[in-house]
Structures are given as structure tokens and as C-alpha cells.
């Protein structure tokens, strides 16, 4: 399915592979779907024949559980199965086409467990010709998530009668039952020695092929734990189109309705909202109609609202808001879908998401759902499910952290940072130390993304909040060091990194980063020491080798520079920069044959790199290989006219 990681190591590629698999499934991709159930007929003990189709139990559904039972008590084994598809269960009835004999036994233990679970039963038919034995154990739980009937069923083929039944009771010895009747269901009581027959039953069940109605794609989901929403900005429908936040008022709900002028369902729905404005108002629901119309369609949208006499708020939905709403739906529902038109989001007076409606929503539903806002957690949980029932577990809690991480992964870093800021210093939704640690780790990941995007002050703020939650989180201090280094606050950066190193002395990255800062400040000796430290923790860090070489080169220690850079490319032979750097150092020192070789290896990795080609050509000129330089020139010409001209000048100059 995916790359396997090395044992015990969290491999990013491997994790991403799983994330991709899960997302594909959530988005509607099939994965080993449309498979037919399998049945294998035992053709003599050693080999089985595939009889899935002739048996007629080759259901094409995503099967899960499977239990054996003679439901209609006609002497043939039937099956209940469960699956993901509709209907969620199937009963396959054995049509008893075989004409063979059978016996069914209900065991009653005494002394041991009364269910006689674990009992081993052997049926010995009279005049049994073959060597086949009929032995079974009584199980409670087998297969997958399944328990089969406790009535033990034995097929007996052509046998006409039963000689005896031997029961090895759990924890006790064997007991022999005689006079057990064939083709009947009987009770065997431990210690009774005699079988007690049960009355026969006659049940007639009609067969049919269940057909589930196709889902409409419309629907409502009400949240069991209303989700606090991040900042939501929409564009006003006036000439300024300026962005304003959706406003909330305690005690009033806001229905954010996404619509478009070209969407008939949307227009009809707005019409209904308008007509029932008084009812909605009385229920405390304010509608905010946000159009997703493109620029060209906006006049039509405005005209529609004007013609309607729309008196409620309206505007345009910018892409950030659409992303936020889409992310919220992703947070609430397992299936991932594109936002439909219309879709409406019911938000409480405190800005929490209460319900999502895909497709047009009835005013009556909105009035009913507005009442959800005032319910406590227990009552709300009961109100959001379609059937009554009982609960034993705790009420769900909105997973703000995951929501923030989703915003981050969608690239809304500032929104995510702002959203997470509301959570600290402790997650107000509860969760204890583990939740606090998760929050701190999320902040660190967010900080890294912010740093990458150059949002340095926010990144610094974010890392500091992580430290406030967990002062000993080395990666947070490391992140602070990186941001400060970017801000050229080298002294403070190094102090932060030293703190990180104190907390996690085994992280090779920390001294490496210190080395980079020191090198930049031309503190070459200390830089080399820092790179050495990093390499002692992770000798395979090619960049540490490379940068160590760079520093040696700055110091004029050519041999050491070359040695360090060669280490980098030994570890990673495709490390292009290392080959190029080696060539350039050697070239600068006029060690031309060696330089030419290094250029050649760089060009072997990337034959059309103009910068390398021109340097290579110059070195060829310098060593007197005019023919070679001309060939290089020919390669260079189609790649970069300017550099080619320079090389040509160089060649001409020597002539």
C-alpha cells in the first residue's frame, strides 16, 4: 500500500502516504471495492472448490461480520452478514438443495460454564464407512466482530442414524450420549447422558433482492459539540466591497447562506427565507446571504435581491471564507465533498457552528434547530441523532486543535495562529496535560510553516506560546532560534538554540543551526566546532559536511574544505552542489585537472547546467584544451546565449 518505514522511525513519506489514502477514501475513491463474497466447498479434506457463484452468496458489498445460524430451523446453515452498504445486514437462507442428513445440538453445562463454551463434540454416525470424523468446538466469538449461534450444527451426509455423541465438557471429562436422533435438534445436558428432543418448526421466508434507495445528496448535520469558528470575513455588497467580519449578537443566530444567481434551488430558497422573514426573526435567526457569483454575474445577483425586496444582510463570499466553511464541514463530516449550492451554516450568537445544511433548508427546520443553541451538552447529543437511544460514553468535545491544524494545512497560517491563540494557555475545551502537549506541538508545526512563509513575527509569537505551554519543548526553542536567526538577531538566536540543546542534547540539528549562524558571523573556529558537534550526533548530515567545507574554504584551508565536501558527496552521490563546490574550489586554486574531473561529475548529474558548463569551459581554456572548450561552447549555446558569449570571449582571448 505504501512505503514501509524503518522500524520505530516516524517516516514522513510513510505518514503522508496514509494521510493520502485516508483522504482519497473520504473523498469517494473506492479501494478494493465491488468485490464478491467468496465461498469454498470442501471437496475431500485437502482441497476446496470456489462455489461463490453457484452458492448465490457472492454478494457484492463491503462485508464485515459473518455469523452462522439455522435461522429458520430447517436443518441448513444460514448466514447473517453485516456490511458498509445498504442494507446493512443480509440473511442468506440455505435452500437445502443437498438432501443430506444433519443433527443440531444445544449444550447445557453443569459444574463448568453453563453455556458449555469450549466443549468439544464428536458425532459418530452409525455404520460410518469412511475415515471422516465429525468434530467441532463450541465458540463464543469467532470470525470478525461476530458471534455465531450456540446451537451446534453437524452435516452428516448420507448417514442414516447416529451411533453416539461424545462431549468433552470444558474442565471435565468426556460424556457419551446415545439415542441421539438424526435430522433433529436436541439438548444435551451435562451429566444427563440423554438427549432431549426439541419440537420441529416450520418457517416460510420469501426471498427478495433488497434494493436501497439512492441517497439524495441533500441533508442536514447538527453538531454534537458546536465548533468555535475562526475569523470570518465577507465582502459587503456595496460599491466598496470592503471586507467586514460576520457580526454576532448574543441570543441571535446567524444563518450564513451560500448562493448564486444562476442557481435555481438557491433563488427558491431565498424566496422562502424572505417570505418567512418574520418567523425566522421570531426564532432569533438572522440570514446572511452570501453570493459566490463571479464578477460578471454580480449585477444579476444584486438585481435578484432587489427584485425580491431582500431586507436581510447580504454580500459576497471571498475565497478565504469559503475555505473556512469547507474546512468546518471537513471537521464535522467523515465524507469529504465539495461545497454544494446552496449550503447554509447555522452559527450561534457566540460564533459557534451549530448545523450545516446541504441543499435548500426548510424554514421549519431552521426554527427547530435554533433551539439547539440553548441545550446543554447532554440534551444536545440526544437532539442531534436521528433515532432515540442510550449513551454510556462522555459527551463529545469540539476538536479545536484538529480544526486549527486543518486551517494550517490549507495554508491559512495567520487564521490558524489566531484561532490557536484562543486556546491557550490551556485548551478551554478541556483535555488535561495531553491536550496541552498536543497544542504545544501543533504550535511548533505552525511556527515552522509561518517561518517558511516568512511571517516571522507571527512565527516567533507562535513558538513563544508553545514555550508558555511547555517550557521544556526543545523544538519550540529551536524554532525561536531559527526565527531570530532569520531576523539577524544572532546572539539571541544562539541563546535559544543553546536552550534547545540543553533540553534535547541528541538533536543533531540544533548544533548544526548554531554552526550556520556562527559561520555567517564569520566566527569560523566556533562554527567548525558546532558542525563537528552536529556530525558526532548524526555523521550522515550532508549539509553539515558541506557547510563545514564552506567554512574551511572561507578560511583558506583548501584541503580540509575539499575533504569535507567529498564526505558530503560520498554520503549522497547525487548532491550536485557538492560536486560543483568542489570543482570551484579546485578551480580557484588552479588545480585544474582535479577541477575538470569535479566539473565532469557535476555535469554527469545535470548535463545542461549553464553555470557549470561555462566554468568547465573556462577551466578547459586555462588548461589549454581549446578543442574541448569549443565542444563545451557548442553545448552551452542553446542553453544560455550570454554565458556562451562570455566563454567565446575567453576562448578568443587566449588565442
Amino acid at each position: 500500500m505504501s512505503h514501509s518505514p524503518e522500524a520505530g522511525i516516524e517516516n514522513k513519506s510513510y505518514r503522508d502516504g496514509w494521510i493520502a489514502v485516508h483522504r482519497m477514501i473520504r473523498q469517494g475513491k473506492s479501494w478494493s471495492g465491488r468485490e464478491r463474497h467468496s465461498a469454498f466447498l470442501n471437496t475431500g479434506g485437502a482441497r476446496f472448490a470456489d462455489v461463490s457463484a453457484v452458492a448465490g452468496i457472492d454478494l457484492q458489498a463491503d462485508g464485515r461480520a459473518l455469523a452462522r445460524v439455522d435461522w429458520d430451523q430447517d436443518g441448513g446453515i444460514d448466514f447473517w452478514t453485516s456490511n458498509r452498504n445498504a442494507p446493512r445486514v443480509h440473511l442468506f437462507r440455505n435452500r437445502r438443495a443437498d438432501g443430506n442428513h444433519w443433527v443440531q445440538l444445544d449444550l447445557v453445562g453443569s459444574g463448568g460454564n453453563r453455556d458449555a463454551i469450549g466443549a468439544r463434540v464428536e458425532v459418530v454416525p452409525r455404520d460410518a464407512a469412511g475415515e471422516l470424523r465429525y468434530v467441532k468446538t463450541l465458540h463464543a466469538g469467532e470470525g470478525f466482530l461476530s458471534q455465531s449461534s450456540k446451537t451446534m450444527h453437524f452435516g452428516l451426509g448420507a448417514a442414516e442414524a447416529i451411533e453416539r455423541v461424545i462431549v468433552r465438557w470444558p474442565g471435565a471429562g468426556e460424556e457419551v450420549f446415545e439415542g441421539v436422533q438424526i435430522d433433529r435438534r436436541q439438548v444435551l445436558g451435562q451429566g444427563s447422558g440423554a438427549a432431549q428432543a426439541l419440537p420441529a418448526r416450520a418457517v416460510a421466508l420469501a426471498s427478495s433482492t433488497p434494493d436501497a434507495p439512492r441517497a439524495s445528496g441533500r441533508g442536514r448535520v447538527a453538531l454534537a459539540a458546536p465548533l468555535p469558528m475562526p475569523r470570518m470575513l465577507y465582502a459587503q455588497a456595496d460599491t466598496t466591497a470592503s471586507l467586514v467580519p460576520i457580526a454576532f449578537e448574543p441570543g441571535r443566530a446567524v444563518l450564513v447562506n451560500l448562493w448564486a444567481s444562476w442557481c435555481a434551488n438557491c433563488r427558491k430558497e431565498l424566496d422562502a427565507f424572505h417570505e418567512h422573514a418574520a418567523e425566522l426573526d421570531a426564532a432569533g435567526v438572522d440570514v446572511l446571504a452570501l453570493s459566490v457569483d463571479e464578477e460578471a454575474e454580480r449585477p444579476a445577483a444584486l438585481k435578484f435581491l432587489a427584485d425580491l425586496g431582500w431586507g436581510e444582510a447580504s454580500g459576497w463570499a471571498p475565497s478565504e471564507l469559503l475555505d473556512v466553511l469547507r474546512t468546518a464541514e471537513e471537521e464535522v463530516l467523515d465524507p469529504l465533498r465539495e461545497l454544494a449550492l446552496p449550503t447554509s451554516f447555522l452559527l450561534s450568537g457566540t460564533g459557534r457552528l451549530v448545523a450545516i445544511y446541504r441543499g435548500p433548508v426548510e424554514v421549519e427546520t431552521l426554527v427547530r434547530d435554533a433551539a439547539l443553541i440553548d441545550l446543554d451538552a447532554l440534551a444536545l447529543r440526544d437532539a442531534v441523532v436521528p433515532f432515540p437511544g442510550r449513551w454510556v460514553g462522555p459527551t463529545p468535545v469540539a476538536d479545536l486543535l484538529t480544526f486549527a491544524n486543518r486551517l494550517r494545512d490549507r495554508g491559512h497560517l495567520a487564521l490558524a495562529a489566531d484561532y490557536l491563540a484562543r486556546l491557550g494557555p490551556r485548551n478551554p475545551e478541556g483535555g488535561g496535560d495531553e491536550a496541552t502537549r498536543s497544542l504545544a506541538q501543533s504550535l511548533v508545526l505552525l511556527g515552522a510553516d509561518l517561518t517558511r512563509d516568512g511571517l516571522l513575527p507571527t512565527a516567533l509569537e507562535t513558538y513563544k506560546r508553545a514555550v508558555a505551554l511547555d517550557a521544556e519543548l526543545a523544538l519550540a526553542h529551536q524554532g525561536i532560534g531559527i526565527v531570530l536567526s532569520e531576523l539577524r538577531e544572532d546572539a539571541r538566536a544562539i541563546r535559544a538554540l543553546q536552550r534547545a540543546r540543553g533540553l534535547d542534547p541528541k538533536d543533531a540539528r540544533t548544533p548544526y543551526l548554531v554552526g550556520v549562524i556562527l559561520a555567517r558571523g564569520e566566527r569560523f573556529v566556533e562554527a567548525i566546532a558546532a558542525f563537528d558537534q552536529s556530525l558526532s550526533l548524526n555523521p550522515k548530515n550532508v549539509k553539515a559536511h558541506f557547510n563545514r567545507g564552506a567554512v574551511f574554504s572561507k578560511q583558506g584551508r583548501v584541503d580540509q574544505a575539499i575533504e569535507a565536501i567529498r564526505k558530503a558527496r560520498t554520503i549522497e552521490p547525487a548532491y550536485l552542489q557538492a560536486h560543483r563546490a568542489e570543482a570551484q574550489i579546485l578551480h580557484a586554486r588552479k588545480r585544474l585537472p582535479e577541477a575538470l574531473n569535479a566539473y565532469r561529475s557535476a555535469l554527469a548529474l545535470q548535463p545542461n547546467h549553464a553555470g557549470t558548463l561555462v566554468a568547465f569551459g573556462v577551466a578547459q581554456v586555462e588548461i589549454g584544451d581549446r578543442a574541448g572548450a569549443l565542444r563545451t561552447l557548442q553545448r552551452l549555446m542553446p542553453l544560455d546565449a550570454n554565458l556562451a558569449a562570455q566563454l567565446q570571449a575567453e576562448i578568443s582571448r587566449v588565442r
Partner: protein
Amino acid sequence: MQVLRRSALTLSFLLPWGCSGDDGTQPPQTESGESGQDLAVVPGQKERIALNKIAYKYDYLDPEQDGWNTEVLAAKVKEHLHRIEEALHNPHEIEASDLAAVATGDFTCTNLTGKLSGADYDAGGIVVVRGAFPSGPLEGTGAAVLAAAVVEFADQYTEEVQAHFRVVRIDAPELGADFTTDLRLELSGRTASGRGQQTAEWSCTWRPVVGEDLPRLAAIVPTLHESVIAKSETGEPLFEDCTEAVLAGDESYAAQLLRSQRDSATELDKELGMAFRGNFGLAVGDVNGDRRDDLYVCMEGGLPNRLYVQQEDGTARDVAAEAGLDYLDRSRSVLFVDLDDDGDQDCVVSTYPVTIHENVGEGRFERRAEAPLANVYSMASADFDQDGDLDLYLCRYNAHGTDLPLPYHDANNGLDNVLLRNEGSWKFADATQAIGLDDNNERFSFAASWVDYDDDGDLDLYVANDYGRNNLYKNTRGTFHDAAAEAGAEDISAGMSVCWGDANADGRSDLYVSNMFSPAGNRIAFQRNFREGDDADLASFQRHARGNSLFVNQGDGTFVDTSVDAGVTMARWAWGSIFSDLNNDGLEDLYAVNGFITNEDTGDL
């Protein structure tokens, strides 16, 4: 790590040479999503930003992308196979010209049905015939001989013909050269005497042709042919679907059971425990002592579990609410067992916390105990210590927050399974460690089942684990150790379920374990460039996708894996499987249900 990359760039400014960015940009990702049937969608809402970080993985998993030579070839081969499937559907109308574009001019094949010598099985109206191979070559070459072979193969069917090829394996050294595929053909339909089905396995050679996009079939060498006829005057199969006869009269059927998991998941907050990949079980038991078996159905969070009590006429009525078992919490499995030795069926539901109920009569259950154990999958009960009461073994899967199996083919970072010892008076104690069941107990466990495999008078336990090796806990006077390796029954693959039964009717308990047979997985695993230079890993990947396993008990504490010879591996991506005598001939047959996720998208991976 982003941080690292940025820092490296920082240093490059001070270096005497330039350092260009070496990270490739990822191509934009597009994919289809479901939309409501009659609803428009907001424009421009295709998945975008969130996926950039993992877009390369989408590409990686896309068979059309680079690196999966076998998947590209499989797609091409399938186009031709569809033509042969069509021909099989109408064998009486087939002409050589229909297959002219499929076969090379010098196409050859040997007799597809093999050498026949009497029936391998003939009892109770079922006849099984297998051909012997190698078989002799057919006369002639080219499309004509292919057409003739196909006609011979399929002309016994009169109607309802179903033909389906599966590409099991592709050996493709490089694009542009001849390559071979292992195919499995499943063919079935009505025959003059009843209903028939054939299973065939062919090794096919394909040859690229200059100027043509699709390679042509150059040769077929059959390796298996198995034909089954179930005699029946009406042509009906051995089983019929009676779901609606039993359940449709209960209002929960249309309201709840006729909705798929995915449909339910579009209307329920997933924080309630709703998931549409979900695995939810069932139990059959007699909950009211009327000698009729009843059915309990587990449901994902937000939907109530149902207890269908069988009526005299075979129909069933949901009484979960009256019984006190209508849990809305996510419930993966359920057991009905007599825990207090009073002669009725008590009930354990794998909610969180796990709930244990006493049957108090008159169809009611009262909760007597709770166990704060999360993520419980299958449960299995037995009196392991022979103290007269039933104990409970609970399988658990991934630990909270660690959903990644590590390493994939032998994961050892799952959640520990738990044995709850029945202490009487509705008290249960975690005895896992005390009795040695903590041995090798950090797996992703799906299922377990008890049996006395070594015939020493106490019950042993087999545990099927996803992503790796299984456990066989041998019971020695109430203490256990994992004997799977010494018994030869580790079955290192994606274990989904386990059942015991006497497959060879010698009186000893054999073992059948459900695994994952993934056609794509199988092909990809066999591809030479899947895992360069790591033969051990490659072998384990291949084993992972082999399919179900049958282990035959040797009577000396060891097992022999006879899965392939017995012909029981190909149960696809299997979940539940059990031994069961389908036709009352006294031999244990097998039934396995399968299929991972069927979604709207038809391009199955």
C-alpha cells in the same frame, strides 16, 4: 523538514558559489468529489491547498503515474480482457474477427480445460471437475484458435453469464518488451442442468506491437481449471436472500438499515463516533430463552444498536430500547454469554467504556459493570482457567493518536489486548499480565478465537493481527505464552479474522485466517522496483497480499500452511470468514465476506 531546508539556504548566501533550490515543485492536484445529484457546487472549490503537502503521495498511489509499470500494463491488458469477457458472455455468436485485434498472428494456447479424468467431488447434486495440467496444444494459430478456445470454455452456459478477469500478477521487466501476466478468470451462469461456475488461472504472454497502443496476446498457458455444477431444475443457487422477509416489517429496516454507512455519515457529526469506513459486527444468540436465535446489530456512533428478536414466523422485531441495549455509542462488537451461570444470556457490548449487562429476565438487561477500554474490536469468551465461569478476551487496535502501523509489515505499536477474568458477582479483573497474555501484545488486533488445539484439556487462543504476525497463545494450566512461531502459524500478513474448524476431518482443529488479497497490492508487491535491494522486505510485502490462510493441525503442536494447494487464498480483501458446512456433507466448507471500500468512484485501487 522545512526548517532545515530554510537554514541551509541561509548559509548559501555567504558561500562563494551559488546554491539553487533543489526541491521540485509539485504539480497541481485535481480529483473528483461526490456532489449531490441535483445540487450545483460552489465553483473553484476543488481540493487544493490542503493537499499540496501530500500531493506527491496522491501521485505515488495513482497507478497511472511513473514507477508503476505493472499498473500501466495492467490497464492496457484489461482493455483486451474486456473483449474476451464480452466474447464469453455470448459464446455462440463469437467469431474469430471479434478477437482479431486481441491476438497476435502466431498466437498459441494449450487446452484451457486441461486433461479430464472424472469428478473430484460428486455428492448432493454438486459436481466438481478439475483439469490436469500441462495440457496439450490446440491446433492452429492466431485469433481463430483463441476464439475456438473461448467457445469451448463457455458454451455450457445458457443464460445469466458472468465473466470476470482479474490480473493477479504482472512480470514486466521493462516497457516495450514481452511480458507475462497471471490471470484469474471467474465464469458463471445457468446451465442446462442447473447452475455452473468455472475458475481458471492462465499465464499469458503479451507482445507489444509497433504502431499499436495495446500489446497483443501471444500465448496462454493455463495452470488451473475448476468447474462446478450445482444441479437444480429451477437453476436457483444454493442460498437465497431472505433479509427483507425477516426485517422489512420492522420500521428500523427502512429508516436505518437501508442506509449505507456513507449516507448515514453525511448527516451525523463524526465526533459522535460516526465513520463510513467502519467495521461493525453482529451476534446471533437466544436472548429470551425461547429456543429461537435472535440477532443483535452493532452500529457506529450516533445510530442505535438494534436487537432483533425472532418471532414464531421467522420475522424479527427490534426490542433494543425495551431491552436496555439501544446504545448510540460506537459499538463494534457484542457477545451473548451466560456470565453469572443462571441459564440465560448476558450481554457485553464494546462501547467505550465496554458495558457488561445481566439478563434480568422478561427481555430486559441491566448494566452491571463497565471496563474503561477504548477501541475494542472482536471479543471472544471462554473459561480459560476452568473455574466454572466465562472470562472475556478483548482485541484492541491502534492506540489513540498513533494510527500508523510501524513497521508496516510487522507492526508492533498497537494497543494491548485485555483478558477480563470473571471474579463473580459482576466483577471483572484485568488478568492479562498475570497470566502471560502480555506476551507480544502490542499488535493491531482485529479478532481472536479460543480452541484446545493441542488437545491438552485447556483452551488456547489465536489472535489475528493486522500488519504483521499473529499470536497463538498456548495455555499451560492457566498461563500462556505466544507459541505462534514454534507452531508455524504466525501468518505474517494483514490478519482480519480467525476461525477454527476441522478442515481435513481428522478430529483436530485447523485454522483459517482472513487476510488481504489485493490485486493491485499483489502486482505492485511483485514489481521488481518496488523495494530495491531489500529481498526480505519484498518477500514480506508479497506475503502480505497473498490472501487467506489455512493452517492444518499436525497433532504435534505444529501446523502446516496448505493455503495455496487447498485453493482457499483468493477471498479478495477479506474480513469475516468462518468454517461452515454449506451442504451438510459433513465437511467444513468456508465462507468469507470481503471488499474494503466501495465508493462512487469506480477506478478501484
